[in-house]
């Protein structure tokens, strides 16, 4: 957007209209903030206080015990190792998935926007359509393929799956970015004898930090928040944090420990929330440029 200016009229002083505007925004903000408030309050209360008090009240006797339990000793079924297991699993999944999916997307976008490849447009169209189709349409044959190759239910399996399903969005992102770069630059490099890879690594990639940042934000939050792919392909030893969280909350034996559940839930949301608050406008750029995900 070239004109990033608010365009409504400027409210002068505290008119009734201005009051109405702020009243609406504050009420809306409360609706959006209330869940976070309740989650934090619940996670800081002992279970007796949750039973006696109400969900929005400030804790009378704040305690961090639920957080420690959630991290280190909450149970999924018979194992009681806390959500930390899922945290490290998600980190292990993220570490190769994010750079690899971005690299494949960048190379594909670069090849499609600068090089003459026959059938490129049809190819790109199918790739984009793939992003819209529900996973359920692909999952079963994919499971069979991975099972046949012997890597089903492993870390490499879930990483490959994330590269596969990240490809449409990543390609779209890089292709659009590279379409905005001057083609003369590429032609000059060709005249100087640059090949496919040398032009990519020496000229195009050094110009790509803006799109690389957006891609990283999208992939880190997208892969961290994934549930269905991790559940289907990661295998029991590598279940990501979202799946682990759902198991912890869903499988508590005996009485539900709402405070521990909420602490675990907040812990699971921390990484994407951190990315969101640190990245600010970059996050917005990402979701509006490639709002395909979700």
């Amino acid at each position: 957007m070239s004109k990033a200016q608010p365009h409504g009229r400027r409210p002068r002083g505290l008119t009734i209209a201005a009051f109405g505007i702020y009243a609406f925004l504050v009420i809306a903000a409360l609706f959006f903030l209330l869940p976070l408030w309740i989650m934090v309050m619940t996670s800081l209360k002992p279970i007796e206080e949750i039973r006696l008090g109400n969900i929005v009240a400030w804790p009378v006797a704040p305690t961090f015990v639920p957080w420690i339990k959630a991290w280190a000793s909450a149970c999924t079924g018979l194992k009681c190792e806390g959500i930390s297991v899922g945290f490290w699993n998600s980190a292990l999944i993220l570490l190769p998935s994010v750079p690899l999916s971005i690299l494949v997307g960048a190379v594909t976008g670069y090849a499609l926007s600068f090089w003459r490849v026959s059938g490129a447009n049809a190819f790109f169209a199918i790739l984009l359509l793939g992003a819209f189709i529900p996973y359920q349409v692909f999952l079963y044959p994919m499971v069979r393929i991975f099972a046949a190759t012997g890597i089903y239910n492993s870390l490499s399996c879930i990483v490959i799956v994330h590269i596969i399903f990240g490809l449409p969005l990543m390609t779209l992102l890089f292709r659009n970015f590279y379409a905005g770069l001057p083609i003369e630059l590429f032609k000059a490099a060709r005249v100087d004898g640059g090949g496919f890879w040398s032009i990519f690594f020496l000229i195009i990639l050094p110009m790509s930090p803006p799109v690389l940042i957006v891609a990283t934000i999208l992939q880190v939050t997208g892969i961290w928040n994934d549930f269905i792919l991790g559940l289907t392909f990661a295998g029991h030893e590598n279940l990501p944090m979202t799946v682990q969280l759902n198991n912890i909350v869903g499988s508590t034996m005996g009485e539900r420990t709402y405070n521990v559940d909420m602490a675990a839930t907040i812990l699971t949301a921390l990484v994407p929330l951190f990315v969101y608050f640190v990245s600010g406008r970059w996050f917005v750029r990402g979701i509006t440029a490639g709002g395909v995900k979700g």
Partner: protein
Amino acid sequence: MAATIALIPAALVVLVIYVGCMLWTIRLSFTSSKLLPVLDWVGLTQYERLFGNERFLIAVKNIFTFGVFTIIGCLVLGFLLAVFIDQRIRGEAVFRTIFLYPYAMSHVVTGLAWQWFFNPMLGFEKLGHDLGFTNFTFDWLINQDMVIYTLVIASIWQGSGLVMCLMLAGLRGVDESLWKAARIDGVPAWRYYLSIVLPLLRPMIVTALVLLSISVIKLYDLVVAMTHGGPGVASDVPAKFVMDHLFDRNNVGLATAAATMMFITVAAILAPWIYARYASVDGGRA
């Protein structure tokens, strides 16, 4: 040459996954596969079973109810938020950050959080009692007729921020002289937004509509985390129906038939959009 080689991974994904696996799934929907895939041919038997399956019909009805309310809710709330934020207010960045942060959270987190707020004993119901409304009941989470609306509320909370962002980007592109002209003509603000700005935002609204529709059809994580499809199967959705029949109930034929129906629905939503967006405009690098 090198360019072609570099496209091999992407080509493999397109051919093997997007085309191959999809055709495979569709093919399986015409077989009698149970636990293991068999390649016989039973015609439309699985589809007949599917549309005679009460659970699937509930799932379809649910996804329509959920879709209509969630999409309308997100569009209206997102548009209102964008318009109010666009009034040269103070603290614009703070409000924007607050309205969008739920979108950064996963559906699982959203679902588990709202499951707790809707807890029929200790959640909002108890809050109502503490505030003095002793007859206040709020049992939507365990009420067959209302449970789908708990998903709607959680989903609107999570997704309105995205619509706000899209609309805000659109609003910032509206020519400011339009407002000045409208003011000179004495057009009230609400009329200006409804009759002049809203039509100008059509591309943004269509984009938001497509994105929301697709995410509605994909709805799975939120249901699993928040209601498990329950009580009973009262909040089941097609994606969950497919997953359960694929991996828990060992009914691959029926599951792939349901998956194929999901695919047809997405295609029906996308076709006019893609046609309007790309078929009318020829060429262009982006």
